[in-house]
């Protein structure tokens, strides 16, 4: 198993009610699988929200295999400016 930290911002934070999750996942879990899991936890509140993935503070392709200790964020549309 691997441990990952999921950082939650904006709509994700609002939907999950927390700014951070600590999760234990099977070895080989991908960001796409974790995305699915997060959306399930949000109970429909993230339906239709596009989420980009960052691992260790860098945008990564959708299907990235996670490592133990990774910091993952599902980034809803950004709104700076």
């Amino acid at each position: 198993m691997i441990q990952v930290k999921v950082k939650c911002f904006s709509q994700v934070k609002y939907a999950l009610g927390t700014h951070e999750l600590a999760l234990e996942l099977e070895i080989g879990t991908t960001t796409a699988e974790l995305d699915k899991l997060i959306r399930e936890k949000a109970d429909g509140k993230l339906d239709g929200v596009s989420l980009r993935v960052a691992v260790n503070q860098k945008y990564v392709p959708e299907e990235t295999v996670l490592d133990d200790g990774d910091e993952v964020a599902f980034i809803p549309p950004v709104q700076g400016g």
Partner: protein
Amino acid sequence: MVKVEIVNGSIDFFPPDDNRRQDGAELVFNGRVRATEHGENIIALEYEQYDGMAETELTQLANETCKKFPIHDLFCNHRIGKVSVGETSLHVVIWSKHRKEGLEAMIWFISELKKRVPIWKWAILEDGTRIPSECKH
């Protein structure tokens, strides 16, 4: 040269400078908080950032902008935390030889910032409610 900062609290504007010899164009953009957000009256926005990643992405974007356009300097401050209506949340200064490249760089920089720098807005409504502002550009 690039200067980028994400600041919690009010922004110090980059000062004018009369001592440059080859910069014919100084362009300043201040993005300010409007009293209406998606049709609702607000008293402030609260900006949330992905600590660390936001500044890294913003710095990288500023450097990319300086490579893509023949500008001399790009300075950018982005405010985080509560920003009241009327106040500046984004301050950008671009120095270039001619205005054309400065204007093009400004347009591209802000448009990319709004696509990739992990910063979000929460609307603070008149009754004090705090909700994520939907993304509409």
